[in-house]
C-alpha cells in the first residue's frame, strides 16, 4: 500500500485528491458518459467544460453519488466513493452547489447554512428534544462556524431573511456558503455563473480563487461561461457527447482544434 503510493508520488508531482477512472454512465440505452478519466490535484481549480448535453452535469452527479456509473471508478484520496450512499459524501469532504439553486426555500439564510454543518456534527432526537448541555455547546459551535462563513461571503445582513425572498445572485452566494459550511476538501460548483450578469461573474471568479487560496480548497467548476473558466482554471477538461475531448491548461484546450470544432462547428462541412 505504502509502496504503491510512493510509486504514484514518484511518477506524478503529487497523488491526486480525486481520480475519475474510465467512468461511463448509461441511461436506458443512451450513453451519457463514455470512459471519462481525469485527475484533480490538491489546490487545483479544474474547469469542466463542454456544449449542452456533453455529460458535465452527469459526471457531476456521479461525484455527488446521485447517479451510479455503469463502469469505472471514482477515487477520493485513493479510496473508491462508489460504495457510499449520497448522504455520506459530505463527510469525506465533497461539498457541492446546484445548477438551478437548490436551497431550503422556507428557511432563513442562517438555517440554510446551519444545515451545511450537518455532516460535521452529531446529535440524536432525544438529546435534541431535551436540549442537553452538549447540544447547547454543539449549537453554539455550529453558530460560530456559520457566522464565520456568512461573514466571509458578506451575508451577515441577510442572515435572518428567508432565502426564497432573496435575489438570485444572493441565493447563489447562500448556496456557496452552505457548501463551505460542510467544510469540504473539494468544492463542486455546478454552473455558478449561470444567471449572473457580467459584473457578478467577474466578482465570482475572484471569490472562487480566494476560496481556493484562503480556505485551501480544491474546486471543480462545471461551467458554460468560457470567460470565467479560462480566467480562473488551472486545468481544463473538455467533454463532448460523453467523451473527453481535450485536457490541459486553459490555453491548450482553447487552441485545441477538436474543442473549437465542438463549440463552433467545422468550417468546411
Amino acid at each position: 500500500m505504502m509502496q504503491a503510493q510512493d510509486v504514484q508520488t514518484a511518477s506524478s508531482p503529487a497523488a491526486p485528491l480525486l481520480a475519475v477512472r474510465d467512468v461511463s454512465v448509461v441511461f436506458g440505452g443512451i450513453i451519457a458518459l463514455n470512459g471519462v478519466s481525469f485527475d484533480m490535484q490538491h489546490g487545483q481549480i479544474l474547469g469542466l467544460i463542454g456544449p449542452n448535453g456533453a455529460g458535465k452535469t452527469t459526471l457531476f452527479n456521479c461525484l455527488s453519488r446521485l447517479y451510479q456509473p455503469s463502469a469505472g471508478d471514482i477515487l477520493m484520496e485513493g479510496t473508491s466513493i462508489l460504495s457510499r450512499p449520497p448522504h455520506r459524501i459530505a463527510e469525506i469532504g465533497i461539498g457541492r452547489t446546484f445548477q438551478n439553486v437548490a436551497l431550503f426555500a422556507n428557511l432563513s439564510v442562517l438555517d440554510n447554512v446551519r444545515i451545511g454543518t450537518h455532516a460535521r456534527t452529531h446529535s440524536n432526537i432525544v438529546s435534541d428534544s431535551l436540549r442537553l448541555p452538549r447540544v447547547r455547546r454543539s449549537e453554539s459551535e455550529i453558530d460560530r462556524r456559520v457566522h464565520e462563513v456568512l461573514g466571509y461571503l458578506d451575508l451577515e445582513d441577510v442572515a435572518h431573511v428567508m432565502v426564497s425572498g432573496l435575489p438570485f445572485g444572493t441565493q447563489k452566494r447562500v448556496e456557496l456558503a452552505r457548501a463551505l459550511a460542510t467544510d469540504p476538501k473539494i468544492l463542486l460548483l455546478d454552473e455558478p455563473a449561470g444567471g449572473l450578469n457580467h459584473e457578478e461573474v467577474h466578482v465570482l471568479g475572484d471569490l472562487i480563487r480566494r476560496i481556493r487560496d484562503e480556505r485551501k480548497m480544491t474546486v471543480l467548476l462545471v461551467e458554460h461561461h468560457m470567460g470565467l473558466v479560462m480566467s480562473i482554471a488551472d486545468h481544463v477538461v473538455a467533454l463532448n457527447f460523453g467523451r473527453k475531448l481535450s485536457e490541459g491548461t486553459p490555453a491548450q484546450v482553447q487552441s485545441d482544434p477538436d474543442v473549437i470544432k465542438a463549440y463552433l462547428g467545422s468550417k468546411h462541412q
Partner: protein
Amino acid sequence: MAAAQEVVTETPTVEAPPKRAMTLGYGTSLALLGLLALVPLFAKNFIIFQMTTLLIYALAVLALNILTGGSGQFSLGQSAFYAVGAYSSAILMEHANINYALTLPISGVICFAFGYLFGKPALRLSGIYLALATFALATAMPQLLKLGVLEPWTGGVQGLVVDKPDAPFGLKMSQDMWLYYFTLAVSTAIYIFSVNLLKSRSGRAFMAIRDNEIAASAMGIDVARYKTLAFGISAGITGVAGALGAIAVQFVAPDSYTVTLAISLFLGMVVGGVGWLPGSIVGAAFIIFVPNIAESISKGLSGAVFGVLLFLVIFLMPHGARQVAMFGQRLVGKLWK
C-alpha cells in the same frame, strides 16, 4: 435522471407562510400557560373536561404538525396511532394494573415503534400517495381492533372501560380538575420538547428534507432515517394523546378512532397553520368547538354550516391561525408607535 433533476427543482409540497418563526416568544408562551392554568379555577367540571379534550387534541395536532409542517410528509392516518396509544394505555391499566401515568410513556414508545416501522415502507411514497397509504391504515384500524383473536385484550366491539384517576397526595381537587392539570403538564412538556427538537440539528434536518431532499442528502442528511424518525416521533406523541384521551373519557372502543378523527386532526393542523406549533391549540379548538357552534346555528344543517365556516377560514386565512397571529403582532407594533 429526469426524476432526480425534477426533485432538485421541485417546489416544496407544503407551503409555509412567509415567516420562519415556528413558536411564540417566551412572554406570550408564559401568558398562555398562565391562562390555561387559571381557567379551571373559575370553571365548571364540564368546561374543565372540554378543556382537557382540547389539550389532548392539541397534542395530536402538534404531532401531525411535526410530521407535515416539519418533515413535509402527509398523514391521514393519525387516528390509527391515536387508537394504538389509547388501547395500549387501557389494556395496561385494566389487564396489567399499571398506574395511568406510567402507561403514557409506554404507549408513546409503542406508538413510536409502530410509526417508525410504518414509516419504513412509506418511504417509497410521497405527497398524495403517502396520504392515501396512511388513509388506508386509518380505515383498517377500527376493524383490526375488533378482531376476534385480540378480543381477550381489547374487549372486541364492546371496548374497554377505564377508571378515572383521583387526585394524588390527598389533594382536594375534583377528578376532572386533576386530570386537566395532569394533561396540561404532559402537553406543556411535550410542547417544549417539540420546540427544542424543531430548533435543533434534527429539526433542521426534517425541514431540509421538506424543502429539498436532494440538497438535504448532499449536506449529509440521511433522508430515509430522518423521514422514518419523523413518523416515529409523530406517532409517539399521537400515542400519548390517545392514552390521555382514553383516561379522560374512561372508555376505548374501536369506532371512536375512525378515519373521521384523522381528517379532523388534519383539519386542525391546517386551521392552526402548517408548521406553526402554537397553532395546534387553535386548530384543536376549531375541530372541537366549531361543530358545536354549527349545531347551535342550525340543527338540521349543522354539517353544511360547518362546511361554510371551514370554507371561510380557509378562504380568509389560508395560512391558518399563524396568519392571524402575525397580523395581530403587526397591529400591536403599529399601535405601540
